[in-house]
């Protein structure tokens, strides 16, 4: 197997360099058109927010490329000095490269362990390379195997469970309260970044409408336009609170915006007993914590969401060893299968070659012994030659299979080809 995974990720290169090495569609098309010819190899270009990698494979011969050559190529495509790129590149070879792509697809090499988005990005990169005609037998086998491994990891471990970001953890607190979201109103107070991120996750639940309230009408209008929501004048905040089911509050106010008294007098009587969930993401807090009763009004602050996210991340980490074990088993299986595919024809050729020699020698011998041996004796001679051949080939074939299993069959394969005059 001549496989190389060469690139950089969040651990090896700063975001600035990764940004400069990012492949837009045009650059990726150029790379997929150039790389197969330049390195005489199959190629896949994987570009995510956390990594830029080239997967290069050759069925035979030497390694398709090493990190310096890939650094040169990346430098040319992106107009970055190769010297700036090379120190940040890693290079994984053969079985290690297989393990790398399997781990990447399963989200085990991601900054947020267990994230599932990267699996889709790996699939997309592979399909783009296939469409461009840049893949061949090895990568056509490797990437589907990586995606199967990722699927198995997700199905058999809980490494992808739970919300691990503070903004997404809000969703975890909504499900115990609400059953359906298509009739719910989300009110965003303020225009903080955390509120925007949380809203992105809540919007995936499909709420009926989004209201936006802001002290500054200009900023409020901008936020309403960005969120696809309806602007509510600041002096109608109580009305909006009475209509809302979910509130995201991220103002920069020094004092609570909604006190216990204000809520009791101006909001609660108009809510008709409906449940309200408030995510108070502001520091200092916008909502009086005394409003929280876990029944009609639930108020969660940044610390509550952080606790949920931290626990989910810890829970994911707990399942990493099981996920790594699955990856290890799948890597072993892939390498073995690939080498069997590769060794099969060689072993067949070797056996046929020795068969040919045996039959020639045996033919000569039997010609000289013609009429001197009984039929049973002739069979014994033929059997002895066959046994000798089997014993002779058993050692080399077993050694080749063993070397292939450990991913180092290349040298032995070449030696056998030279020794027995095979063409490979």
């Amino acid at each position, binding site marked *: 197997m001549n496989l190389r995974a060469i690139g950089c990720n969040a651990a090896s290169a700063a975001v600035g360099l990764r940004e400069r090495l990012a492949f837009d569609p045009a650059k990726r098309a150029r790379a997929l058109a150039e790389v197969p010819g330049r390195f005489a190899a199959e190629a896949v270009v994987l570009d995510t927010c956390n990594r830029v990698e080239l997967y290069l494979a050759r069925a035979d011969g030497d390694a398709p490329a090493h990190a310096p050559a890939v650094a040169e190529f990346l430098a040319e495509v992106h107009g970055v000095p190769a010297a700036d790129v090379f120190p940040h590149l890693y290079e994984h070879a053969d079985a290690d490269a297989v393990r790398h792509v399997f781990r990447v697809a399963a989200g085990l090499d991601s900054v947020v362990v267990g994230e599932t988005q990267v699996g889709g990005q790996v699939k997309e990169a592979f399909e783009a390379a296939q469409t461009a005609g840049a893949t061949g037998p090895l990568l056509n086998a490797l990437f589907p195997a990586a995606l199967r491994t990722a699927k198995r990891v997700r199905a058999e471990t809980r490494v992808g*469970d*739970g*919300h691990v970001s503070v903004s997404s953890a809000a969703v*975890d*607190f909504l*499900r*115990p*309260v*609400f*059953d*359906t979201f298509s009739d719910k109103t989300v009110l965003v107070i303020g225009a903080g970044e955390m509120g925007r991120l949380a809203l992105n996750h809540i919007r995936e639940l499909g709420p009926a409408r989004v209201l936006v309230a802001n002290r500054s009408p200009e900023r409020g209008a901008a936020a309403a336009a960005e969120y696809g929501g309806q602007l509510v004048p600041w002096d109608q905040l109580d009305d909006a609170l009475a209509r809302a089911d979910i509130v995201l509050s991220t103002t920069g106010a020094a004092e609570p915006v909604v006190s216990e008294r204000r809520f009791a007098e101006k909001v*609660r*009587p108009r809510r008709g*007993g409906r*449940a309200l969930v408030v995510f108070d993401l502001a520091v200092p807090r916008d909502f009086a914590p005394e409003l*929280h*009763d*876990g*029944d*009609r009004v*639930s108020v*969660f602050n940044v610390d*509550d969401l952080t*606790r*949920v996210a931290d*626990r*989910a991340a810890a*829970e994911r980490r707990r399942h990493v060893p099981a996920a790594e074990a699955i990856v290890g088993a799948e890597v072993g299986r892939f390498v073995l299968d690939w080498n069997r595919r590769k060794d099969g024809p060689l072993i067949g050729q070797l056996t046929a070659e020795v068969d040919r020699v045996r039959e020639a020698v045996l033919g000569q011998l039997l010609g000289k012994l013609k009429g001197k041996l009984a039929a049973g004796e002739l069979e014994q001679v033929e059997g002895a030659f066959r046994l000798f051949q089997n014993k002779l080939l058993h050692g080399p074939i077993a050694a080749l299979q063993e070397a292939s299993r450990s991913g180092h069959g290349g040298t032995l394969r070449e030696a056998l080809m030279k020794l027995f005059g095979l063409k490979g």
Partner: protein
Amino acid sequence: MTVSPLQGITTACFGLSYLCAFLLELARYTRPGAVWRWAGVGFGAAGLAAHTLYLALHPPAPAAAYGALLLLAWVLALVYLYGTVHYADRAWAVFVLPVVIALVGLSLALAGTGATDPDLGLPGWLSGDRFWGVVHGTLILLAAGGVSVGFLTSVMYLVQARRLRAKVNPGAVVPLLSLERLEAWNRTAVNLAFPLLTAGLLVGTFLLRPAHDLGDNWLSLKVVSSAGLWLVFPVLTYLRYATGVPPRRLALLTVAAFALTLVALAAAHPFAGGGQ
């Protein structure tokens, strides 16, 4: 004469099946795995089948505590199986099965007390005064089923609300149905149980009573607890729709209504033979 093996089904058969289903459900939360769930559902379904056959082959007297509780347990076993299949990822069986098991246990404990009905066959039950007895019993049983579902959803609501109040990490606990769903179920169950109970009590009071000499039994535990239960419903309805009482308090009141239901079902019937 040959005796069908089905005749050998006893309350212990389905009581133990429900117990096994409950234990397997608990095991599912300590050692996650599909095998626990399906084994639990299997035991639960087997228990329900045995329970159904038992009721068909040995129909108990609904007026007696034994029969009433066993029939109510059967209704709740249906609710259990529906919920556990429909809400596979939610803690459902762990709430419903203990009630089913407790009702079966209570019915066994009270077996032999109260009325025993003669085996009249369907035509006998549907003729004359007994017809209204069947109508009365069926309405009360359905109302009791409604109250029981209201009770179960109330308990789940209280647990869910308590978790939210304590801000328990949702990922760290067994998920329950949402407050919204539980409240809707509770409201529907209570709204259905109230007219059923009213109709059942009216049938009992105006159509059955004249045929019996009630005497001092107006103050029997069954009559008093049934009247108390009936009074809870208008209070619940008023609090739910006319005031801003938090659902948590309504849930507590529904739990009290269930306690009254149990007393009413377990108490000796003043009309039926053998009542004290």
